[in-house]
Structure formats: C-alpha cells, structure tokens
C-alpha cells in the first residue's frame, strides 16, 4: 500500500495553532535582541561611571586643548554647544572686518575633536563662503568681490598693479649697486642682495636697510678739507648743524693755527699752497671763522652729499636761517600688510626668482615685488605647494591680540579660569 502523499494528507500533518506557541528560534531571537540592547545600555552606563562623559567625545582634541583633560565643560556648555565666550576666555579673536555681513561662531570654523591638526588652518571654503560673492555693510569694500581661490579670482597684488609705484622719497639705484667691482672702503666690492637685505630674527620679513649698517662704509658723510677725517652724523639737518659746529669749535680750540685766514694774492684770489710762505697769515675773528666755515660745510653737505639720496622740503619763510629739512623717506616696513610671508620658508630660492626686476632697476619708484603670477607657479594645484587662503591671509587681526597676563591659572589638577581679582 503506497503512502498517502496528497495535499490534503500533507496539510493534515500541520497543527493549525502552531503559530500561537512560542518557537525556540523566535524566542531566542527576541532574547538576543533585548539582551543586546540591554548590554549596550549597560556598557554606556558603566563607561560613564568609569570615564564620565569622555566616552561621548567625537574624537581626540587638538594638542593645544589637551591640557583641559576630560573636563568637557571648559569648552562646552550643557545643551548650548560651544559658545564663543568659552573660546574667548583664552583666545583673542578680533572681528575680521568691521563691515562684514556675517560673523560665524568660533566652533563653526574651528572644528575640534579631529585629532592633531591646526585648528587655525581653514579650508578655502570658509573664506569663499563670503569672498566668492562679497557683501558688506556700511562703506564699500576695497577688496575684490569674487574670489574662488588663489588661482581663480584672486586679484593682482595691489603693490604691483599697473600704475603702482614706490613712493619712498629716496634716490636709490639698484642697477648701479649690483655692478661688479664697485669701489668700496678697502677696494673693489661685489654687492649681493644679502649684503643689504637681511630678514628679521623670525625669518619672515626683510629688515629696513639703514645708512649706518649698509651705506656708511662706501658713502661716509665727510665734512671736507676744513675738517679732514670729520664725518657728519646721519641725522636731521639740525643735528648735523650742531655736530658740524661742535667739530669746528674743537678744531679752533685745539688747533688755532688752522683758524687763521689763508693769505690772498693781489686781486683777491687765494694764494696757491706752497707758492710763498714769507707773508704771515692774517689773524681772523673766531666767531666769523666758525660761521663761515660752518656755512661752507653745510652748503656742501646739503647741496651734494645729502642730495645724493635725499630730497629736501621747500624752505619756509619763518625758518630762513635754519637748514632745509630732509623729507623722510617713509620706506614701508611691509608692503603687503593684508598677508603674511616668510622669507625663511623660501630660502632655497635665489632672490632673483621673485625679485627679477631688481638688478635692472634704476628708479626708486619701481616696485620690485613679485607678481601673484610668480607665486602661482608653485602655489597652485599644478604647482604642488599649498595654495589655501590661510597660507598668506589671517582671518583674525593678530596685531590686536593680548600680549601676556592671560585669564587662566594652574591648579594642582588642571588649568582653570582664575578667580576674579
């Protein structure tokens, strides 16, 4: 007799109420699911007990903030995130511009808990959020209104735009000074850029060229034959006058024979030296001699020596007796004040790479700074060097930061705000 394998027979083998009874598979699944959730909750509670809220951190803080340890509320405020006040306790963050339309919160740009990175190094998006379509309040801005990046939309540096000139009131010819075999103090010299231009101790900017350090050896302010070996100070003309008078008085006191007027030949001309010493020199009035000699020396200085480099202000009627005043050169200590630069970081390059026109420059009015195009050779995606906005520009005005004596103090456990004084 064959087995009954009809559908009806097979269906009869199934209990109709089987689904009402718990099945080990489903029961185990439910228990595992509830157990996993309970375990997860227990892990959170135990971890909070052992480590506090530290388990909720989204990542390690930057090195500069490690001193706060696990005290999250040094920076955070419960249910309020990271208010700017918490940052400003330690950091000075002056406003970017007075006429900016939007001031983002500190934490929206300086995102913490990303490990060891420079919180100040922002991506270009932080800058181009405004500068790609610059809107301002109040007075119109002098900055370009559409900058996407350094290679897209960044204007030429203001100092080297067409029509820009060096307004320093000083005559200096780079071309002459870069010639080979110049006559120096003790023989021929070949000047190099570094002979006059030296960076500051931080290696960032070139220090000012000074007469005393860089010019004096070849261009001493000699006072002429009356005072052989005498040198005028590189100072305002009033000071020069006093120095000249003082040297003449010393000469008159120590060598009165030099004060005697040289004999004159008939017709009023001076006798040639060595022609005849038989006629004795004519004694002169000391005051007159000093006055005449000083006038002669000052005339030579102002008319020739100083004018080699300097211009003089037009004399005024009220100061008819005084010497003309040198117009201050007003050489800018820094040309591009909206950016930062480090000569040290570029020390592998020859000066001529960036200052190519210096060797041929004959006029002071020529600006010898590089164009933005020169920078783009390296500082662009194709150049390979970093080209973010923050490479050159600072968002906050660092010059307005506090110097020393900040608001924090150290207790035995960690750094905390100090008590009000």
């Amino acid at each position: 007799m064959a087995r009954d394998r009809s559908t009806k027979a097979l269906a009869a083998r199934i209990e109709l109420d089987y689904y009402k009874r718990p099945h080990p598979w489903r029961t185990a699944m439910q228990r595992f699911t509830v157990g996993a959730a309970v375990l997860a909750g227990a892990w959170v509670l135990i971890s909070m007990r052992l480590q506090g809220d530290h388990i909720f951190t989204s990542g390690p803080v930057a090195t500069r903030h490690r001193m706060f340890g696990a005290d999250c509320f040094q920076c955070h405020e419960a249910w309020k995130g990271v208010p700017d006040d918490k940052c400003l306790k330690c950091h000075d963050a002056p406003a970017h511009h007075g006429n900016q339309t939007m001031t983002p919160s500190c934490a929206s740009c300086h995102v913490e808990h990303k490990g060891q990175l420079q919180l100040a190094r922002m991506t270009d998006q932080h800058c181009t959020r405004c500068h790609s379509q610059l809107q301002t309040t109040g007075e119109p801005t002098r900055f370009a209104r559409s900058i996407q990046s350094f290679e897209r939309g960044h204007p030429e540096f203001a100092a080297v735009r067409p029509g820009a000139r060096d307004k320093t009131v000083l005559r200096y010819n780079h071309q002459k000074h870069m010639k080979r075999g110049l006559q120096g103090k003790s023989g021929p010299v070949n000047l190099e850029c570094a002979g006059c231009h030296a960076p500051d101790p931080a290696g960032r900017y070139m220090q000012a060229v000074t007469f005393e350090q860089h010019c004096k050896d070849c261009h001493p302010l000699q006072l002429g034959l009356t005072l052989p070996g005498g040198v005028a100070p590189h100072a305002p003309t009033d000071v020069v006058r006093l120095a000249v008078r003082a040297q003449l008085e010393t000469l008159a006191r120590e060598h009165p024979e030099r004060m005697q007027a040289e004999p004159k030949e008939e017709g009023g001309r001076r006798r040639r030296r060595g022609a005849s010493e038989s006629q004795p020199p004519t004694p002169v009035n000391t005051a007159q001699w000093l006055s005449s000699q000083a006038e002669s020396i000052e005339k030579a200085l102002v008319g020739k020596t100083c004018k080699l480099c300097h211009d003089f202000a037009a004399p005024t009627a009220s100061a008819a007796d005084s010497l003309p005043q040198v117009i201050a050169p007003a050489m800018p200590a820094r040309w591009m004040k909206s950016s930062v630069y480090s000569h040290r970081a570029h020390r592998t390059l020859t000066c001529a790479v960036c200052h190519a026109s210096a060797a041929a420059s004959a006029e002071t009015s020529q600006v010898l700074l590089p164009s933005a195009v020169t920078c783009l050779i390296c500082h662009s995606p194709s150049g390979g060097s970093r080209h973010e906005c923050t490479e050159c520009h600072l968002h906050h005005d660092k010059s307005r930061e506090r110097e020393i004596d900040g608001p924090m103090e150290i207790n035995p456990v960690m750094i905390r705000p100090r008590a009000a004084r």
Partner: protein
Amino acid sequence: MILFCGLLGVRKRVPTWRLGNASSWMRAHIWLGLMSVPMILFHGGFAMGGTLTQVLMWLLFIVVASGVHGLAVQQFFPRLLTNQVETETIYEQIPHVIEQLADEALQVIESVCGPLAPPSEPVAPPSPEDAAAASRPPARPKAKPAAPKEGSGPLREFYEKRIRDFLAAPRLSTEDLAVPARSKALFAHLRKLIPPELQDAAGRLEEICTERYALETQVRLHHWLHGWLFVHAPLSAALILLTVVHALMSFKY
C-alpha cells in the same frame, strides 16, 4: 535612517498596518540601510571618532554586512530549498512532522513484523523543540499491530538498528541513512534479504527516511536563510539604542 530601518521589525509584528506593503518596506529597509554607510562616513568625516562613535561605526558595519549577507542568501537559498526539498513544510512544524514520520514508520513495521518493544533508552537528550513537540497531542491514533509475517526478521532488525534511531534523532549526523547514497545502498541490500510481499513495506520505510533526510536539509537551509538574523537583529537593537544616546549627547554638548 537607522530608526526607519529599525521600524521594519515593528512593521513585521503588525502586518495589518496600512502603511505600504511588506515588499515596499523591505526595499526601503535595504536601500536606506545601504545608503546609511556612506552617509555615516560623511557624517563622521571619514574618521572613527571617540569611544562611542567607534562602537557605533563597527556596529553599523557589522549590521550592514550581515544584512548584505542576508540579502545575498535570500536570492539563492529559496531556489535551492525548492530544488532539494520536495516535501517542504513549515519550519516550526518540522519536529512535529518528524514525529509523525516516526509514528508512520512504526505503524509500517508493526503491520508486518508485529508489535515491537519500546527502545531501551533515549537516543539523545530531548531538545527544546522536542520538549515543545512532546507537549503537543499525538499526530494520529496508532493502528492495531498485526501478527509478524514470515521473513520479516531482517526488516525488523533493520528498523530497530537503523531506522528507529535515525527517525528519532533530533539532528542528523553522519549516520548511514543520513547519507543518501549510503541509504540507498542499505535499502537495496535489505530488499535482497526480505520476501517479495515485504518489499512494499521496505519501500515505504525508504520513502519515510528520504523525507526525514529532506526535512533535515530544509532545517539546514533554513538556518542559512535566517541564521544571520541572530547577528543582524540584536546588533541593530544595540545600534539604535546607542544612536539615540549619541544623538542626545550631541545635543547636550
């Protein structure tokens, strides 16, 4: 997204909800679950973050990986099940059906060999499924055993030594009858030892053993089909709970 993915479990528990059909929910569950990986990576800035976020990341990866595994096996194993198991039955009823197969085999053997003595000792300790089966009423009333037929000794011996234990075992191991080729050879040998009038009984016993083997195959494939849920569902619950904690703490800080 994660919360919505978790709602699939709730939706399954209340199938009468008029909130889209089950397949739509499953599609949304799969796609949102897959999309959650890149979304979370962007959310975390491609970093693992702190302790809790690291745990969350790993939980998510394991949950999604187990889900992808489940999705893959769901594409192949149902077809395999259909091909390999002709007598597929409801998974939860497999122990009950096996019990009926054992009863059926006993009836077949008692109809030709007379009443048999009960087995001296259980083959294996009862599992929870067996316990559940034991609590249920017997599948069908047993028929009255007949007098033993001539030449039924080998059949009886074969039943007592091999078939009874094979049908009673909650899980098949490497017994002879659990290997199809070996089982076929054993039954072929048995048929040579018994008279023609007992061939029909031997054939029925072979069918029963084959069906038992097929049910074991169904159990094995079912575990492949749904076993991943033991990883997926519990870790999803932990993931959802920790995600809520993470969100709350994010608001706090």
